[in-house]
C-alpha cells in the first residue's frame, strides 16, 4: 500500500499541502516562516484562535477554534497531507492548569479527530512534544532514550497532560496504519524570544540553585527545534525522537557560561513549604522545575541525528547565544517592532491584482492562490 505515486518519491518534487496548528504561537509562527521557503510546499495553512504574531508571506491564516468538525472541513477541503501540531503548552506558568489541560489534551484530541477517518487526506502528522514526558526522578538514567517507558506516574498536572497528549497521538498512529507520525520530544529550549522556564531562571540577576545539588542540564536552541520540525515535515521520519543538543551541562557550568552568580538558596527538601514565600519574593519556581533543579535530565539525541538531522548548536553554544541575547536586551530593551496582524492588509497583499509579484526572488511570487 502506497500513499503517494512512486515517481514523486524520486527526484520529482512531491507537493505538500501543510496545515500548522497554533500558527500564532511561537513555534507555529516560526515553523510557518521556515516552511515558506520550502518549494515543495504547495499550500501552507495556519489555524489558530488568535491572530498571527509573526509576519507570514504566503501562509494562509484561518481563524478557527480547535473544534474538530471545523478543522476537519478545512483539512478535507484543502486536501491537507501534512499536519504539524506545535501548540503543546510545556510550562506550567504559561497557562493555568485548566487552560493547559484544555489546550494539551482536549484540543490535541480534536485535531487528531479532524485528521482521522477513512477519507481523511492526512498522510503525515508531526507532533511537538516535550522532554517533560520523561518526568524527572531520582532513579532516572543519565540519558533517556526514546524507547524507555516512564517508571513513575506523572507528578504534576502539566506532565500528566503531556503524557496524555502523546498517548493520544500514539493511538492515532496505531489506528492509522500507513500514516507517518513523528513525535519530537524537545529538551529545554533557549532562544531569543521564546519563553521557557530556564529562560526565566537565567534572566534573574543570579542563578538560584538547590543547595548541595548541581544537576545535569541539557538545552536545545530554538532554531534547532524549528529545523527539527521542518526536518520532520520534509523527510519521512516516523517515530518518537528526542530533540536535544549535544552536550549535557552541569547547572554551575551554565551559570558561568551565562555570566551569572550561582546562588544556592533553594532548600534541598520541603519544596512545598518554601514555594509560597519564594513566590512572594518574586521567585516563582514552576512545580516541574524543582526536580529538574535537583536531579537534572539528559537525553540521548542520536536517533534523530541518525535520520539525517544536524544540530546547529550544542547545549553550550545555546547558552552562550542566549547570554548574548540577554546582554543585548539589557542595553536596547525589548525592541517594539512586534508584528501587527491586519486582515485587510494581508488579504490585499495576497490577492490583489495590483500587488506586483516579481518572477523571482520574492517568496510570494510563484505561488498561485490555492483553489479552495
Amino acid at each position, binding site marked *: 500500500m502506497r500513499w503517494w505515486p512512486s515517481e514523486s518519491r524520486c527526484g520529482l518534487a512531491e507537493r505538500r499541502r501543510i496545515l500548522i496548528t497554533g500558527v500564532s504561537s511561537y513555534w507555529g509562527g516560526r515553523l510557518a516562516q521556515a516552511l515558506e521557503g520550502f518549494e515543495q510546499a504547495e499550500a501552507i495553512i495556519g489555524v489558530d484562535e488568535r491572530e498571527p504574531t509573526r509576519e507570514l508571506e504566503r501562509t494562509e491564516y484561518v481563524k478557527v477554534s480547535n473544534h474538530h468538525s471545523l478543522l476537519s472541513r478545512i483539512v478535507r477541503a484543502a486536501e491537507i497531507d501534512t499536519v504539524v501540531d506545535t501548540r503543546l503548552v510545556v510550562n506550567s506558568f504559561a497557562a493555568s492548569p485548566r487552560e493547559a489541560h484544555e489546550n494539551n489534551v482536549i484540543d490535541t484530541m480534536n485535531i487528531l479527530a479532524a485528521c482521522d477517518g477513512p477519507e481523511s487526506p492526512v498522510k503525515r502528522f508531526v507532533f511537538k512534544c516535550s522532554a517533560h514526558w520523561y518526568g524527572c526522578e531520582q532513579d532516572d*538514567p*543519565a540519558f533517556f532514550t526514546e524507547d524507555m517507558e516512564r517508571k513513575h506516574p506523572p507528578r504534576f498536572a502539566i506532565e500528566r497532560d503531556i503524557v496524555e497528549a502523546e498517548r493520544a497521538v500514539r493511538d492515532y498512529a496505531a489506528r492509522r496504519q500507513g500514516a507517518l507520525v513523528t513525535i519530537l520530544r524537545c529538551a529545554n529550549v533557549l532562544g531569543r524570544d521564546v519563553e521557557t522556564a530556564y529562560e526565566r531562571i537565567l534572566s534573574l540577576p543570579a542563578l538560584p540553585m538547590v543547595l548541595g545539588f548541581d544537576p545535569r542540564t541539557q538545552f536545545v536552541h530554538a532554531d534547532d527545534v524549528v529545523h527539527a520540525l521542518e526536518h520532520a515535515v520534509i523527510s519521512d521520519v516516523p517515530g518518537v525522537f528526542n530533540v536535544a543538543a549535544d552536550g*549535557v551541562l*552541569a547547572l554551575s557550568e551554565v551559570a558561568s557560561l551565562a555570566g551569572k552568580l550561582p546562588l544556592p538558596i533553594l532548600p534541598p527538601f520541603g519544596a512545598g513549604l518554601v514555594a509560597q514565600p519564594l513566590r512572594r519574593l518574586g521567585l516563582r519556581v514552576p512545580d516541574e522545575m524543582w526536580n529538574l533543579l*535537583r*536531579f537534572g535530565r539528559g537525553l540521548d*539525541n542520536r536517533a534523530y541525528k541518525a535520520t539525517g538531522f544536524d544540530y546547529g548548536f550544542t547545549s*553550550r553554544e545555546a547558552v552562550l547565544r542566549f547570554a548574548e541575547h540577554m546582554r543585548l536586551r539589557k542595553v536596547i530593551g525589548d525592541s517594539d517592532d512586534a508584528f501587527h496582524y491586519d486582515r485587510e492588509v494581508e488579504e490585499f497583499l495576497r490577492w490583489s491584482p495590483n500587488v506586483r509579484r516579481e518572477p523571482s526572488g520574492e517568496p510570494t511570487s510563484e505561488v498561485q492562490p490555492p483553489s479552495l
Partner: protein
Amino acid sequence: MTRSPVAPERTSLAALPAPGALARPRELLPAIEPDRRLDDWGRSERVEGVFDATLLEFFYKRWFRTEVEGIENVPSDGGALLVSNHSGALPPDAAMIAKAIREEHPNPRSLQITVEHFFKGYPGFSMLLPKIGCVAAHPANVHRLLYDERQLVLVFPEGRKGTEKLYRERYQLRRFGRGGFVEAAMRARAQIVPVCVVGAEEAAPIFAHVNFMKRVTGLLYFPITPAFPWFGPLGMLGYLPAKFKIRFLEPIDTADLGGPEAVADKALVQSVAQEIRSLIQDNLHEMVAKRKSVWFG
C-alpha cells in the same frame, strides 16, 4: 546544517517503529567540546585531579600502601566491567581500584564507579560524586558506558548489602544481586574482570548500626566505626591503616557466553553470576589466609 529536502529511502509502513528499532550508532555520540571542563556525565577532570593528587595519593601510597596483582588483566581498550567485593562504611575500595588502574596500568584509563541512586538525591553527595567519576547504577547508564563509550565500569554486585555488613562478617560475600551485571556485560559484549580487595574491611570496620540516626539523617545507614560519628562527617574518612591488596582476575569474555542474545537465558545469567561470586570468594579466602598481618600484609 543539512536539511535535505529529499526524503530518505524508508518504506516502513508501520505507524511507529518498534522500541529498539531506532538506530543509535556510536559515531553519533556527541563529541567532547574542548572548552568544557566537565563531560556529559558531570565528571570534572579538575576536581578529580585535585582529589587524585591529594587525598587518593596519600591513602593509596602512604596510608593503605596498596599492593596490586594482575593489573594486566584490565584491558587497555574497549569496554570492560570490573566486578568487586565491597566493604567499609564509606567504602574506600572503589577509589583505590580506580587509583590502582591510574597508577599501575600501562594505559591509565579512567574508571567509572557505579553508585546507588540514593546519592543523586542527597545534598552534597549529589554535587560531588558525579564530579569524581561516579555514575548511578542504572542498567542504561552501564550499557551506554560499556557499549557506546567503551569505558571501564566498576560495579559492586553486593551493593549496599556489602558495605552494611558488620566487622564480624568480613570477607563473606553477600548475594550478588540478580545477576544484572552479567546481563549488562553480555548486552554490551564487554569483558568482565573480577576484582578482589583485601584490607577495606579492616580499614573501616562497622561495629553496629544506629537505626534511629539513619532515619534522622536520611542516610542509607548510620554505622558506628572507630571514627564515625565521633569526628562528625569527616570521621567517615577516618580509615584505619590496614594494608590494601587488590587482585585483578582474568577477564571473562561475555562473547563466549553467547552475546546479547543469551541475556534471555536467566539460568545462564544466574550461573555466571554465581561463578564469578565464588571465584572472588575463593580468591579472597586465599588472600586472607596468606596475609600475616592486617596492618603490614
